[in-house]
């Protein structure tokens, strides 16, 4: 039958493909189960091959400062940040930036090692939020470079080059899902730059000035660093967080930010998101259940229980999770829905360093518990833990839709998730025996 291939109906081609593919000879399947078992046994928390970036969302935590300090001058901010955000075993990492670090290359954005270069349409395929493009300045046009990264959540990088210098970035716009558990970009700091609160579409935004180093991962465990010579505007719009690098003035940058619009031809291409741990996880999903007595047997310090509110009683469920050393999780359930917790108290020691990555513009407030410094973190956020080696071990599953009080007492760090007010939460915290 001499039918031109282009006329062959799909079904025939499909049948051919099925038949032929069925005869495909694969290499023998290796013992992956055994290897995985070994890897998990040796490093139960470790991410594969250190690929997983320790770099956390730190840069978005900058916006925390907006709620905390009214005057943002360099040395004071630095000191203030350092003192408030380390609470015992929990460190709330604040991104700031450092100019002039030694081993960074002032290379253009398109480091050839940066993976993920793609087209706008393919990028849209990979993320579950609509990619937006600025319509200001009017001569900007489409981005010259598009990268997609998915180190720990989808991130789109859009780059526009200078007309006369095609390897110099003119504007670089990062778009990422605010709800992503972790973000790749982190600016490390030795000195802060000037941080200035501003507004985009009337909502709080952050302007970070001056040259600084931007670090990110190339996806293969190598950290790349780049000198960003311009200024950066960071803001949020609903579920998406943006970061705009440029040499524009603040006013101009805000104009660019406020000009972001959806791209009609991309709308059909959005990926559907994998379910994210943003809604509180039913308590049934938590591993490591124990009795209180068993849990006490696994730690050297005394597990303390709140005596406020009156009659609160022992926790309904107790869990022990291991991230290097144990974290005790005590959960009091909702009376009307025993699959959900109304209050959860974590207790841990210094071997576990938790890092709070704030993924939305929320408030962090300093307070005290029994005279010890404490932090009150409101609103949705993610908590991740890393051990002393710096390897990140676990993504948090938020168990309570509410706020978190973190404090340290006598070498034990506590973290209380609840929907209580700050005052009530502090009372609970101060009632521990």
């Amino acid at each position, binding site marked *: *039958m*001499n*039918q031109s*291939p*282009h006329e*062959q109906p*799909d079904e025939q*081609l*499909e049948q051919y*493909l*099925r038949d*032929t*593919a*069925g*005869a*495909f*000879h*694969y*290499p023998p*399947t*290796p013992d*992956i*189960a055994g290897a*995985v*078992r070994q*890897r*998990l*046994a040796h490093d139960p*928390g470790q*991410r*594969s*091959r250190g*690929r997983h970036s320790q770099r956390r969302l730190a840069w978005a935590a900058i916006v925390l400062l907006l709620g905390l300090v009214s005057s943002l001058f360099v040395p004071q901010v630095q000191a203030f940040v350092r003192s408030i955000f380390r609470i015992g075993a929990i460190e709330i990492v604040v991104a700031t930036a450092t100019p002039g670090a030694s081993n960074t290359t002032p290379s253009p954005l398109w480091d050839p*090692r940066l*993976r*993920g270069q*793609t087209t706008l349409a*393919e990028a849209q*395929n990979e993320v*579950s939020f609509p990619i937006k493009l600025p319509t200001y300045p009017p001569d900007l046009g489409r981005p010259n470079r598009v990268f997609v*990264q*998915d180190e720990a959540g989808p991130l789109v990088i859009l780059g526009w080059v200078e007309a006369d210098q095609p390897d110099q970035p003119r504007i670089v716009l990062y778009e990422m899902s605010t709800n992503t558990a972790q973000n790749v970009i982190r600016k490390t700091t030795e000195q802060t730059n000037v941080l200035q609160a501003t507004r985009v579409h009337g909502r709080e935004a952050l302007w970070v000035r001056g040259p600084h180093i931007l670090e990110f991962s*190339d*996806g*293969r465990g190598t950290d790349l660093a780049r000198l960003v010579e311009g200024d950066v505007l960071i803001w949020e719009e609903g579920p998406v967080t943006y970061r705009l690098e440029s040499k524009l003035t603040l006013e101009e940058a805000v104009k660019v930010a406020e000009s972001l619009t959806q791209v009609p031809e991309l709308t059909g*291409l959005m*990926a*559907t998101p*994998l*379910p*994210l*741990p943003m809604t509180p996880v039913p308590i049934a*999903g*938590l*591993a*490591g*259940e124990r009795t209180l007595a068993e849990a006490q047997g696994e730690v050297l310090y005394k597990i303390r229980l709140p005596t406020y509110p009156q009659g609160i009683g022992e926790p309904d469920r107790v869990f022990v999770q291991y991230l290097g050393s144990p974290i005790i999780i005590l959960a009091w359930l909702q009376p009307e829905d025993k699959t959900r917790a109304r209050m959860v108290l974590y207790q841990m020691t210094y071997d576990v360093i938790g890092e709070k990555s704030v993924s939305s513009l929320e408030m962090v407030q300093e307070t005290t518990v029994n005279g010890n410094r404490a932090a009150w973190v409101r609103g949705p956020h993610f908590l991740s833990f890393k051990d002393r080696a710096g390897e990140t071990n*676990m*993504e948090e*599953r938020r168990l309570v839709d509410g706020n978190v009080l973190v404090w340290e007492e006598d070498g034990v760090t506590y973290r209380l998730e609840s929907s209580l007010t700050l005052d009530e939460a502090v009372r609970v915290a101060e009632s521990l025996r």
Partner: protein
Amino acid sequence: MISGSGVQVMSGYEGGRQVEEAELVNRAREGSDAAWHSLVYAHQEAIFRLTYLLLGDRDEAEDVAQDTFIRAFHALGTFDETRPLRPWLLAIATNLVRNRRRSLGRYLAAMRRAIQAEPPPVTTLGERTGQEWEAQTLWQAVRRLRAAEQEVVYMRYFLEMSEADMASALQVAPGTVKSRLHRALARLRTVVDTDFPALREERQS
């Protein structure tokens, strides 16, 4: 499996197996490494084969397959165990492959261009049937397609997945799966016609 009316008859998971799998997932979540081990064992072949088809290299495929299960293990908390595990695992694997590919892509594309004239001969160390040769050559043809197109071709015709499972694995709507398949087939036809004359003849016979 598609019945005459085009309706999916079987998604690959019978009811009983699904329940068993959910059990194992729950136990794995609670820390049973035997449970996770058996889940990995049940799915390792499919994951390995897909990554092998996409990457073309046995060792890389093994790496990515292992990483898939490690990553999946740590993400078990977010997995809804009432759904089949395999498409979720394939989603993770596909993402890992995409990330890995992007950095290699540049170099491989250059290499591919260099050998575009003739499909590379398949050297056989053992006995291969004529059909195996054809399958290998077909694979070379599919590898000329774009990554997204390859993914749907492998999943559909090599792994024989349903469109519903593919939609989960690719994290797109089922309609998108259909249209990608359609485009992929069109492209494949062109590739075969221009670059793989031997295949074309086989197909028409």
